[in-house]
């Protein structure tokens, strides 16, 4: 390639907004959901100069560090903040990015791995290294700085608590879901592209993108008869459910009433309960509190003790009410573990 062609290519690339996609502690499902926009990947590659994806480590630190502050137009961060290394990277990317998007449930609310905050760091590590198939006669644990015969090996430090992205850096937008539905990802990216082209409005800071402003119940095809229930059932206890009636009204704890819409109510459509992966519905301050009050409203019981008895049918309240949102909820945000190392 001639130097002229090279520089014009570079100029062309520089004209495109820069996109970074970074995964912290995650399962990778968010990355797969992005890949599953299928042929639109080509449109993303055409609209953006992808400066980071899916690579995240040391070799990249220097490249990202060398960028000017705000040089990356938009960064999508999936995954939660689990080690000192991911926190460091999230802060670095925040500084270099104009818009920081909390992408998916882990980044936004801690997701299922956020249930780790019910245990101390010591309990989590002890459990992993003492399971019944573990051969550990010396009762070893991973150490952040380990002396081996040839030298010292380092591991990133496992933080006392799992944190959401917003608990570590300022964010501009949220794309909810575990993972976000691919068509919603494309819709959100398309809106951003339009805003950058000047052909559409820029969503106000703090907006939730790629989702609705109502609840999963509103997109669910099942009928609600405002029927009351006298007990909850667990899914394996019955052979099946009426395919047309609301699962909650058939006694199955379904998280639809508290959960933001946008997924298309996929789980209730296959006779599985909504488990709440799109996070709190618009205007809900505390997810669990909203769900509890929704359950209370279908329970046929007058006295508090009767209500308590029906709620006994939910064997794991913290898991039921904060399955995805524990780390980001009001419940955990004041926990002393944040200050005292979680031991």
């Amino acid at each position, binding site marked *: 390639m001639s130097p002229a062609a090279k520089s014009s290519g570079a100029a062309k690339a520089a004209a495109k907004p820069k996109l970074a996609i970074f995964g912290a502690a995650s399962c990778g499902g968010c990355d*797969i959901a992005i890949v599953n926009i299928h042929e639109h990947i080509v449109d993303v590659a055409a609209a953006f100069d992808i400066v980071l994806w899916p690579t995240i480590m040391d070799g990249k630190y220097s490249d990202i560090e060398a960028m000017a502050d705000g040089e990356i137009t938009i960064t999508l961060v999936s995954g939660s903040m689990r080690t000192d290394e991911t926190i460091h990277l999230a802060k670095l990317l925040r500084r270099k990015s104009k818009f920081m998007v909390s992408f998916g449930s882990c980044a936004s609310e801690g997701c299922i791995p956020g249930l780790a905050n019910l245990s101390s760091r010591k309990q989590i590590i002890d459990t992993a290294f003492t399971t019944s198939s573990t051969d550990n006669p010396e009762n070893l644990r991973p150490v952040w700085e380990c002396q081996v015969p040839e*030298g010292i090996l380092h*591991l990133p430090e496992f933080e006392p608590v799992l944190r959401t992205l917003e608990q570590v850096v300022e964010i501009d937008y949220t794309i909810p879901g575990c993972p976000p539905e691919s068509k919603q990802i494309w819709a959100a990216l398309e809106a951003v592209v339009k805003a950058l082209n000047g052909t559409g409005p820029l969503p106000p800071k703090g907006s939730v993108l790629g989702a609705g402003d109502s609840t999963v119940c509103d997109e669910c095809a099942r009928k609600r008869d405002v029927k009351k229930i006298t007990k909850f059932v667990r899914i394996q206890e019955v052979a099946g459910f009426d395919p047309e009636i609301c699962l909650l009204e058939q006694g199955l704890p379904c998280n639809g009433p508290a959960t933001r819409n946008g997924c298309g109510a996929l789980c209730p459509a296959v006779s599985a309960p909504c488990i709440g992966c799109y996070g709190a519905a618009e205007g809900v301050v505390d997810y669990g509190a909203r769900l509890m009050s929704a359950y209370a409203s279908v329970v046929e019981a007058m006295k508090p003790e009767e209500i308590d008895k029906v709620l006994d049918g939910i064997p794991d309240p913290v898991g039921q009410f904060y399955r995805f949102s524990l780390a980001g909820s009001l419940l955990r945000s004041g926990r002393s573990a944040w200050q005292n190392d979680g031991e």
Partner: protein
Amino acid sequence: MERITIDPVTRLEGHGKIEIFLDPDGEVANAYFQIPELRGFERFCVGRPVEEMPTLTNRICGVCPEAHHMAAAKAADAVYHVDPPRTAKLLRELLYSAFYVTDHTTHFYALGGPDFIVGPDAPAAERNILGVLAKVGMEVGGQVIQCRKQGHNVIEMIGGRKIHPATAVPGGMTQGITEEQRVEIEKIARWSIDFAQFSLGIFDKIVLGNDAYKEMVLSDGYTDRTYYMGLLDANNKVNFYDGRVGIMSPDGERVGTYAPAEYRDWIAEHVEPWTYLKFPYLKKIGWKGFVDGAGSGVYCATPLSRLNTADGMATPLAQAAYEKFYDTLAPKPESGGKRLVHHRLATHWARLIELLYAAERMVELATDPEITSTNVRTVPTEKPTEGVGTVEAPRGTLTHHYWTDERGILTAVNLVVGTTNNYAPMAMSIKKAAQSLIHKGTVVHQGLLNRVEMAFRLYDPCFGCATHSLPGEMPLSVAIRNSDGEVIELLKQNC
């Protein structure tokens, strides 16, 4: 002592970090492969209702949630001592086979394949999915996208969602499929058989038709003689969803087979304090360190391992491909036992044979007269206690083991995850690559990067499978440090 640090920057569940130490003569003293992340599922699943495990453990891995969904459902069946109706099992296996077609295709074209199709000596910048398309034709790219799209559509039809399926529960499935869906799935399955054969044809033409590549596959640097593990059906053929776990010795003797619930009699997990991941090994042989051979309990659980462990494939076209595989790479048994292939790079070929099997199995399942039955659930009647569920995940045998109280609330959880099986063999392959390319303090720079990258990739490790996504290249950085830990040289590739 000099130190070389290699950070492979691809990731999924954490990422790998490699530290190579040189002795005073500049030879490799040791190599450490570290996994710097832990999330703690075995702890925080305790206290949860066991019926939630299929959806909770999906979140261990977004690339292979289907494997965790199935292992969890099977473990939960076992906890409740319940045998799901036949149709429920067929549906689970059909979803799982569709997943295998998608996953193996993605690996071959986007991740592992580029090394071969574009060529190991091609510039790193071309060894990616775009390079593959340039060589085999852009229309193949469309087919790869079509394959992924269709596979995820089948997963959604049966599992309710494309990622993190929702329908497997203790005792069966939440619901079945309609005849209309069945017809669509059968169509996709038949297309997938053609696509798998086309992919094997590409491998044949580009890799087997090239003496230099063939020589590399057979070279000693990529050969490790370890034990092998794989799930076997009643006829000792490869199965992904159910069966007994077989163990094959490096000499071609089947050491034994065990029911999943007996896994702790056969495997244990060794601990090192410099990594968050444990090293499974064969308990009866024992942990002898990072060494291969019949005296070491290190084993491998990959597509190659499954072919080595089994007597063959359960479907006709895959069986023919299996026979060709052994006739080509291991025409004669080494020691009177079963013919084995120890050449690790042949894992890519084995993966395509499994792709063909998964597609053929999809057709079998989709045309089973009972697949559209509405009898998909057995309601448990016994008290929940303890249960083990095992499936063959694309990256190795996956085992979930749960203990519950009498209400079915988890009191303990043990997980031996697919990629983990291969942690020790991966560490050994990496050390071997380093030893063959570092002598008297001289590092064959690009060669080392390529070799480590290729040695790592063929296992398709989960912490590396974010490269399943677009770029399909593995960025690496190598820092060579002096004995004071100062970086004296820095090499980079793709980063």
